[in-house]
């Protein structure tokens, strides 16, 4: 009796009615269609187009180019190496300074130092601002008649020192502005993760006489291993993707070239060139490593 009952149960659970199958197909089908057609098909097309010559107007004008675009990028585009260098600076600065600062800040805020609620908000505010607003805000700081100019003794509009156009300092300035936003972002991400660390671990460490620095290094960092990976990966992906801030400061003039901008200037506007597609593919190839790391970390249980 009981066995037949369970059999009926399982059969009823497994078998979908025709309506259910339709519902399930729509549930999966509609979002997947949108995602594949809007994201993956264009992405794969860009890879294909990077091997062609095309001005972006008529499909019939597409001509096979082989590796010619890549050849141009690697041998005849000094901007490419400048961009690669700038993306590398960005990456190194973010991974070695901005992200660790955000992590340490999160640790201190999580320890509930005095005023931690205020600091949490203050450091996060730049993250909710759009980069368009950030661009304007920093122009008031650094541009002609800006606060920094006045402090440096150049209050007039005419005698302003060029800061964004000065090649010996603009890298630091840009990375500084970018960090202004990045540190708060990392802080909040890490803070979210820290809440899941068992507090008794830290109490035990404190009773054993560990200093806060030792507790952080020996207890918190290892306990946060998956979050650490995610944060490093996010930092790398953000460094490769960088675009908005540079566009706001320099427009399309490539005053401080980065890969994301080179894609844009080669495709945007009337005279498109598939050099832009080649740049996009290079950007993609560089992003694959962090993306795979990310997927492996967040889906590690499912993949097993």
């Amino acid at each position, binding site marked *: 009796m009981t066995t037949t009952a369970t059999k009926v149960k399982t059969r009823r*659970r497994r078998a979908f009615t025709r*309506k*259910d199958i339709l*519902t*399930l197909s729509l*549930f*999966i089908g*509609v*979002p997947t269609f949108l*995602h*594949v057609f*809007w*994201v*993956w098909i*264009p992405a794969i*097309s860009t*890879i294909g187009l990077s091997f062609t010559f095309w001005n972006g107007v008529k499909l019939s004008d597409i001509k096979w180019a082989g590796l010619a675009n890549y050849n141009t990028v690697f041998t005849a585009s000094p901007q490419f190496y400048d961009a690669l260098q700038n993306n590398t600076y960005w990456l190194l600065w973010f991974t070695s300074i901005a992200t660790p600062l955000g992590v340490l800040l999160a640790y*201190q805020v999580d320890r509930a*130092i005095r005023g931690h609620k205020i*600091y949490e*908000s203050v*450091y996060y*505010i*730049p993250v*909710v601002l*759009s*980069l*368009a*607003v950030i*661009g*304007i*805000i*920093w122009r*008031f*700081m650094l541009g002609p*008649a800006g606060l920094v100019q*006045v402090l440096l003794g150049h*209050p007039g509009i005419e005698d302003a020192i060029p800061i964004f156009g000065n090649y010996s300092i603009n890298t630091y300035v840009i990375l500084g502005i970018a960090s*202004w936003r990045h540190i708060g972002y990392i802080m909040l991400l890490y803070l*979210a993760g820290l*809440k*899941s660390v068992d507090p008794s671990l830290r109490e035990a460490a404190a009773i054993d006489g560990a*200093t*806060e620095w030792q507790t952080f290094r020996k207890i918190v960092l290892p306990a946060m291993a*998956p*979050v650490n990976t995610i944060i490093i990966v996010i930092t790398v*992906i953000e460094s490769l993707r960088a675009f*908005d801030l540079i*566009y706001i400061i320099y427009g399309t003039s490539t005053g401080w070239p980065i890969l994301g901008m080179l*894609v*844009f200037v080669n*495709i945007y506007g009337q005279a*498109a060139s598939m050099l832009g*597609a080649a740049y*996009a593919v290079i*950007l993609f190839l560089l992003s694959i490593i962090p*993306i795979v790391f990310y*997927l492996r970390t*967040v889906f590690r249980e*499912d993949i097993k």
Partner: protein
Amino acid sequence: MSGIVKDQKYRNRQKYKDALITTFIAIFAVVWMIPILWTFWTSLRPYSDIIQKGVFSRPDTLNLRNYADAYRLMNIWEYLSNSFIVAIPAVFLTLFFGSLIAFVVTRYSFKFNLYLLLLFTAGNLLPVQLVYAPLFKMYIWIGDLVGNRNILYDSYLGVILIHVALQVGFATFVMSSYMKTIPKEISESAMVDGASVFRHYWNVILPLLRPPLAALSVLMTTWIYNEFFWAIVLIKSDNKRPITSALGRLQGEFVTDFNLLAAGAIMAALPTLIIFFILKRQFVSGLTLGSTKG
């Protein structure tokens, strides 16, 4: 005995260190706020005041004149509403689609579940520049095909759809990790009761998803509101621009009128700042759900 003395010593030293760290963080917090406060200060003063007396002068007048002027001259309201016309449907659709996929993937054991999750999550992480050129062309071709070139290109719909297509990956990921914590028994009893798939989703699962839906809607509204790339690339008409890309143009037009521009920038920032201060908890939990699984 000596152990206690040592303890005391440690604790005292830690106290000094804590004081030092707190001071440091406090000083930095002030530095962090200066750019925003400075912009706000600039926005309250008339331009002529600054020109005549210099940036650091004591202001004769402090008022909201610049706000009224910027509001009128810069069409701020139009751009702000454009931003919301894009952001609200985009967030709504993203969460709806994300919840559908997350529901199927976590409540049924199909073979393709993991691949589906990987596809969406990876798509969310692709650099947008890789998608840009063909998508742009695709929009124009679809427009020509249906006889209305502006159906996707230079239209709200086109911008909304690309936001949804990209962000649905993040929403799916967050909601599916949340859903794994909902006991399987709830679904099993629904299935045993003979509920259809739709009822199972709509009446059983969706009400349980309220926490991640709240968190994600806050996070995504600010992301999409602040988004910049697609707004430049896909919107050509000035009267359809969202506030982010409009500010870029206004910056060129009002380049000499600092105070007006400052007021415009503050107004553009207000919606996200208000959302942040009112719904701070949702922000944090949204990021928690996204960064630590389960």
